[in-house]
């Protein structure tokens, strides 16, 4: 009996290796034009954060004679209430915003994934305790909590900011990862692995994690947007001492110095907001591709 007849063409026996991750990623990216745009936006901002600040002096110059100037060659986005170039502020401010957001996202993911898997896999008392804490964290509104915390802990540096955002933001992810772990447990393969004597470490690392990896990767990017909003918001409210220029500080100064009341400040007001929205937009577009890259079932299609 020839195998070709028994097996449908798309399931024909193959000994060929599966395509490499790079090939899969490239295919997924090029499938929709929006995805490429998303990745390009992100790359643009990342390089701005890395190299941008090198182009400007540490202390940006003030020019009292050139307040709220319209765009010019020297200042393509005009100037602010002190005559400082808006573009210069945007570029130098990006490093803090993006690095703190990236760190916060990493912390959030690490803590949330750990808590969620441990809670969903071991169940019992561990689960009970972790879920109580999660409920608590999820119920308390995030911004008010951060504001209150700012009185006892100065989190002006990107690392401190990342840690704080990570420690207060893992609740949602932990709960989602727990429910995914629980539903994986329902399926037989976890039980089978235990019956075969495979260790808990193996089961968590090799059986559970690969299944929720796409979800975690997507949340990593989503947490970046959440972290950007949080830090920009805190600086806007002025509850954290400014250590460096960033987009939140720009909004705070604009708001506090009356830029709200004059139409001339249009570019100054809009620029930091536009950057935040562009980064968000880039992340959303990239997420779409990431989902396909990491999901073995979608890859086949």
């Amino acid at each position, binding site marked *: *009996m020839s195998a070709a*007849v*028994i*097996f*449908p*063409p*798309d*399931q024909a026996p193959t000994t060929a290796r599966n395509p490499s991750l790079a090939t899969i990623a490239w295919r997924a990216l090029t499938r929709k034009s929006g995805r490429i745009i998303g990745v390009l936006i992100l790359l643009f901002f990342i390089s701005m954060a890395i190299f941008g600040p090198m182009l400007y002096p540490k202390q940006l110059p003030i020019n009292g004679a050139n307040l709220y100037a319209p765009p010019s060659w020297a200042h393509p986005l005009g100037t602010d209430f002190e005559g400082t170039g808006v573009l210069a502020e945007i570029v130098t401010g990006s490093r803090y915003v993006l690095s703190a957001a990236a760190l916060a996202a990493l912390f959030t993911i690490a803590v949330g994934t750990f808590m969620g898997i441990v809670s969903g896999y071991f169940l019992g008392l561990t689960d009970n305790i972790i879920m109580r804490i999660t409920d608590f964290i999820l119920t308390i509104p995030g911004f008010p909590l951060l504001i209150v915390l700012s009185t006892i802990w100065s989190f002006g540096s990107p690392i401190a900011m990342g840690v704080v955002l990570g420690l207060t933001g893992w609740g949602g992810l932990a709960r989602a990862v727990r429910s995914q772990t629980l539903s994986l447990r329902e399926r037989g393969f976890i039980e089978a692995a235990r019956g075969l004597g495979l260790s808990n470490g193996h089961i968590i690392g090799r059986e559970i994690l690969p299944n929720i990896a796409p979800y975690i990767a997507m949340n990593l990017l989503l947490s970046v947007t959440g972290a950007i909003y949080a830090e920009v918001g805190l600086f806007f409210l002025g509850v954290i001492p400014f250590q460096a220029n960033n987009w939140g500080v720009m909004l705070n100064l604009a708001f506090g110095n009356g830029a709200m009341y004059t139409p001339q400040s249009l570019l100054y007001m809009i620029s930091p907001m536009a950057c935040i929205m562009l980064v968000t937009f880039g992340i959303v577009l990239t997420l779409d591709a990431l989902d396909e890259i990491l999901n073995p079932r979608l890859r086949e*299609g």
Partner: protein
Amino acid sequence: MGSVAVEPAQASALDRDVACRVRGLTVTYKVDNRELSALRDVDLDIRQGQITAVIGESGSGKSTLALALMNAVSKPGRIAAGKVTYRDLGEVTAMDSERLRRARGRSLSMVFQASQNSLNPLTRVGAQLLDLARSHDMRDPRAVLREAAALAERMSLDADRVLTSYQHQLSGGMRQRVGIIFGLVLKPQVLLLDEPTTALDVLSQSSVLEIVRSIQRERQLTTVLITHDMGVVAELADRVVVLYAGRVVEEAPTTELIRHPRHPYTRALIQAIPRLTGDPSLARPLEGQPPSLAAIPTTGCVFRGRCPHRMEVCETSTPGISQVSDTDHRYACHWEGAAND
């Protein structure tokens, strides 16, 4: 017993006996820009007042057929060719949506798989029966409730309890009986049963089959039974249509089919049933895998990949319909051995 090749038109002898006629039915699904046929060129007569079973495994197209009989194939599928005509309703494949809606549930009613929840989880059973009655403009919706209660009592259910229950308060066997009540309460002309007992417990299965059998006999209700289980067919059906990979491969009265299967697939299927009597080691597993939609060959015999009697001609030419002489038994196979039992 010899066999002769016949034309499909000749095959359907008596119009008076036929409640529903399917001709040249082809249903395709659009997958990745390819049109794949789930059913191809199906001819079928549903006899008036009888139970006609359609048996097939997954990928045979039997669920698609159930939908097509109500002209309810939905995207990405479509009825690409053919007609489904009922004696009392006319051609459902040509009806506009409002006429179709009036026919569904009223003249043609369907009992769904036991594993499916066919009830709205947020509304009581009684209220949903009233919705059904109002949708079909019954003059006295209360009478429908009374009829439902009578049916419930007959199925040894507590009618008051069932009608005031939500779906989640009913066990699997009870839900399926409620599904049957919905199917019968408006006194349809044709009843479709789609895997009515799959996923039910053994004892529930046999009592549900018993209920269907007795009501069908009493009302002489034209019934179509869609199933994968030869046991259910043997218990209920008067006639059987065997579907494989979207094609009808054999059709005969039930006892005739079970006693003298002709098509190699039907033979293998019956041989693969473990039974309570006889030598268990005589049962033979069926080779190969069930058909997958993407892999159904478009020319030649659809079963050839698993067939022990495969010949060269099976690769190139689609077998025509042969009829066992002087009987109501038809099959589609090139193999000469099929003619002998």
